[in-house]
């Protein structure tokens, strides 16, 4: 049994095999693997006796349940109106220039992915971005340079 299959099985044991367990299992797999591979979704479908299309349908609905490989650090800049008005485009440009990747891309060393997110609920402190689960409110191009530099050093 592959590592993914073992993980899925373990999670199915933990959460149960009802359809309602699909979400927590998907979240656990993303937490541990960074994204949902085909193999992972196939294993989940098998464990929960669902079709793979159903599993993919659910995963693809949620921005945070990635179905393509992502870097170790996933940067998500809020794209909704308030953050847009407060200059999120400039933030994205700055990160893009630093990491030499466009929106939706991952660095060749698999360290960073740059994405946009729907409203993160921080409109009063926009523009805002997430790096994995960490929130960075009221960012400016200068601040963002500093933050990303810290992650670059982290390895």
């Amino acid at each position, binding site marked *: 049994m592959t590592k993914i299959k073992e993980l899925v099985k373990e999670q199915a044991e933990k959460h149960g095999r009802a359809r309602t367990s699909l979400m927590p299992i998907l979240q656990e797999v993303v937490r541990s693997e960074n994204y949902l591979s*085909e193999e992972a*979704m*196939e*294993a989940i*479908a*098998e464990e929960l006796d*669902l*079709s*793979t*299309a*159903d*599993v*993919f*349908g659910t995963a*693809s*609905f949620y921005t945070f349940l990635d*179905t393509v490989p992502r870097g170790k650090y996933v940067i998500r800049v809020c794209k909704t109106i308030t953050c847009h008005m407060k200059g999120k485009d400039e933030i994205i440009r700055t990160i893009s220039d630093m990491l030499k990747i466009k929106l939706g891309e991952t660095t060749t060393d698999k360290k960073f992915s740059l994405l946009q997110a729907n409203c993160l609920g921080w409109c009063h402190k926009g523009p805002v971005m997430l790096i994995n689960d960490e929130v960075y409110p009221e960012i400016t191009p200068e601040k963002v340079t500093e933050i990303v530099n810290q992650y670059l050093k982290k390895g």
Partner: protein
Amino acid sequence: MSKYKVNLKINNIPISVDEGTTILDAARELNFKIPTLCHHDDLCVAGNCRVCVVEQKGARLLPASCATPVSEGMEIQTNSLKVRQARKHIVELLLSEHNADCTKCFKSGYCELQDMSNDYRIGDHVFLDLVKEEDKVVDISSPSIEKDDSKCIRCQRCVRTCSSLQYVSALAVTHKGNEMRISTFMDKPMNDVVCTACGQCINRCPTAALTERNYIDEVFDAIYDPSKFVVVQTAPATRVAIGEEFGMEPGSRVTGKMVAALRRLGFDKVLDTDFTADLTIMEEGTELLVRLKDALVEGKEVALPMLTSCSPGWIKFQEHLYPDLLDNLSTCKSPQQMFGPLAKTYYAEKVNKNPADMVVVSIMPCTAKKFEAERPEMRGSGYKDVDYVLTTRELGRMIHQAGIDFEKLEDEKYDSILGESTGAAVIFGSTGGVMEAALRTAYELVTGREVPFTNLNIKPVRGMEGVKEASVKIKDVKPEWSFLEGVELNVAIAHGLANAKILMDKIRAGEANHHFIEIMACPSGCIGGGGQPMPTNMEIRKKRAAGIYEEDEAMTVRKSHENPEVTEIYQSFLHEPLGHKSHDLLHTHYYPRKRH
């Protein structure tokens, strides 16, 4: 439990209906037609397209009539100014996301969205056209089904069909917001996913987002190629349905007209799949008796219950979902695929044609048959056994194209040979039919007497119940079948793959006591096949089934083993059921496929 009655008014007319009835159904009782798109009688409520909105007195919003149950004192208007305007806007909005290239579309004239847009005289583009260019790339990976996302209105009839009727869920709702679409696992091509090719989604798609791969031009090319000898075979269920393509009542028996039309289209010979249906009974019946003998006399480990193998959608379903039970499947090819190799060997010799110059076309109620004909195993004759498979709908289209006035045609008869058939063959078209035909022959073979049912009509295996079970006591058998004396033969029948699953799970759990099980992929069997005229619903399918049983009763010969052409082919060519030639031409094997 008696239901409470609810009183309401629709368009000022009072009506009393059962509690829980939807406004839509209540309006239907008063013969008010409310337009619908996502609603389908075979499927659960979705309430997502909104075209069925009505005005309710005192309510601020317009409720969707398909999804709203009636309540006491309700006053509904189905065609008020407010409703008309809302409905028009809804259709306009749907059209703004629909690739309305109606003149080029295969569904033109059959499209529910087009009808509605005509009814409401939708002309100008009120809203911006939002059809995405990338969605205009049609998925033609499957030999059976074309998927065109640019035509999709996301009503999800296909999704509900694939999950609740068929327990496959090859299609699901994926992504969200303006990216939301009906897709497969990881957006893979249809041919690379668990799709059984049954085509039930096509039957219910209101637009042309899902259609059959059509081969009309290829068939006309073959007909007009003087170097080709083109023979056509017609499946049992087509003869009670094709009339619908010409406005006739569902279930109209138009066998003779269909034969006449095929001849006028230019097919060199018009032959009948019913002949190989009879042959299937001989082969499959013998196979069952051999399995029973092996189990009861020899004490061998044999796979029982034996499962029928006529339905290619069902075969593919089993290969994907129950590969551990493939040994239970009869090794018999389906009647279509028995016909192909016999046409290119036995028949070719009789009519003195080179099989290389022959083109075998089938008219099928089915889209999975297109897939089946492409299976690499289906080359028993040394050539591709069946060259083209057309649905009943495609044949209807060809007849329209050729300007043939179908209803006025005089009845004609099938050509001989491979054209003779029995009542047992024609009932293959309805759920329970293969079982009934098999019992008529097997019982008589074993006991020397006809089945103990009035007028050969084995009623317990008929009808539209999802899973049917019956047993037949075998007694006073011929000496060579003494091991069957007193045996209670248990049979079961399922139609629709969700019902098949019920039986398959029982077998897997070792809880099935059946000897023989008939399974058809499509609801109601082939008469409800994915290639049959649209629309489909239980009422229509029941009428077609009635047509099938009338056709059976009208036949002079009603038992497969009494078909004179069947006797002849065993004497001069096949020699015996399950014999060497049969093995080469009429039997096959199956392959496990991935579920996930």
